[in-house]
């Protein structure tokens, strides 16, 4: 089983995901250059953080047209597990694989800090190893993480339990104070209708070793391992 980590020009978290996959969790992984046109041979795709194409115009706006994205879309449509973190989340939204958009933080400033997120749904390939309502300690690092969907769509997301994470207090309260960027309803992560594509602003790869302050991020990797194993069974 092999994880493919996409690299766009300006991506910078791919090394960290590679490190966690290889050195921490022990999953086979490989980098996929944005000019490649195939993702064959990979069982799971990760779109990491960074500033693809400098995040010029709109975060992820240009990256979604990279040659590799056709293959990514096909992989997602066929039910393959796809995770987008930070810039990767923004790209997935721009590509239409996830609902909504990510806007400039209400503070108008970049924010790099630890936050807590509450797991709203464990029925995705990336959250199945978590407990419902489990609070995770993970870092954020972004200037444009304010999640937005039009009101009517929000209701639909709620109804179909497509909201996967909400910013919360350490004890799981969803409060305005716990919201670092002004995201609608404290939304930190969502999934698509097929539930196989998940995006979130935080960085699980930065929270996968005790030495770095949290191991909660590992759950994303163990989850996808479990679900892939289950799928092949």
């Amino acid at each position: 089983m092999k994880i493919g980590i996409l690299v766009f020009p300006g991506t910078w978290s791919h090394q960290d995901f590679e490190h966690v996959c290889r050195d921490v969790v022990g999953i086979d992984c490989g980098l996929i250059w944005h000019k490649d046109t195939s993702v064959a041979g990979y069982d799971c795709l990760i779109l990491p953080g960074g500033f693809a194409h400098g995040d010029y115009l709109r975060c992820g706006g240009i990256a979604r047209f990279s040659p590799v994205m056709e293959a990514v879309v096909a992989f997602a449509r066929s039910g393959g597990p796809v995770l987008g973190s930070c810039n990767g989340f923004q790209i997935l939204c721009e590509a239409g694989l996830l609902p909504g958009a990510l806007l400039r933080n209400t503070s108008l400033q970049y924010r790099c800090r630890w936050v807590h997120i509450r797991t709203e749904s464990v029925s995705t390939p990336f959250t199945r190893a978590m407990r419902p309502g489990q609070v995770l300690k993970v870092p954020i690092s972004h200037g444009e993480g304010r999640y937005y969907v039009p009101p009517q769509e929000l209701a639909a997301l709620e109804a179909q339990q497509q909201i996967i994470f909400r910013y919360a207090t350490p004890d799981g309260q969803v409060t305005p104070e716990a919201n670092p960027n002004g995201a609608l309803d404290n939304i930190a992560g969502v999934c698509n209708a097929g539930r196989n594509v998940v995006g979130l602003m935080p960085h699980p790869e930065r929270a996968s070793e005790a030495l770095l302050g949290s191991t909660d991020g590992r759950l994303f990797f163990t989850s996808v391992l479990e679900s892939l194993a289950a799928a092949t069974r």
Partner: protein
Amino acid sequence: MVEARIHVTLKKSVLDPQGDTVKSGLASLGFSGVEDCRIGKFMVLKLQESDPQKARAQVDEMCRKLLANPVIEEYVFEISEVAG
């Protein structure tokens, strides 16, 4: 050669904190009369294209595909002929 002047603005329903900040910034500078402030993008493209009709169609496609995000933004543009 034609020039396209494109305005991309946030939909009314979308909060514009930058606009709000500029508004309060102006207030603190003593400009009390500012009722509202919205901030968008202004793009000027020069196209190697003689036929304004074709140009218009092209630019509209550019906006739909890349220059604006329909979830949060709307766009308008004018086309004018300019010297190469």
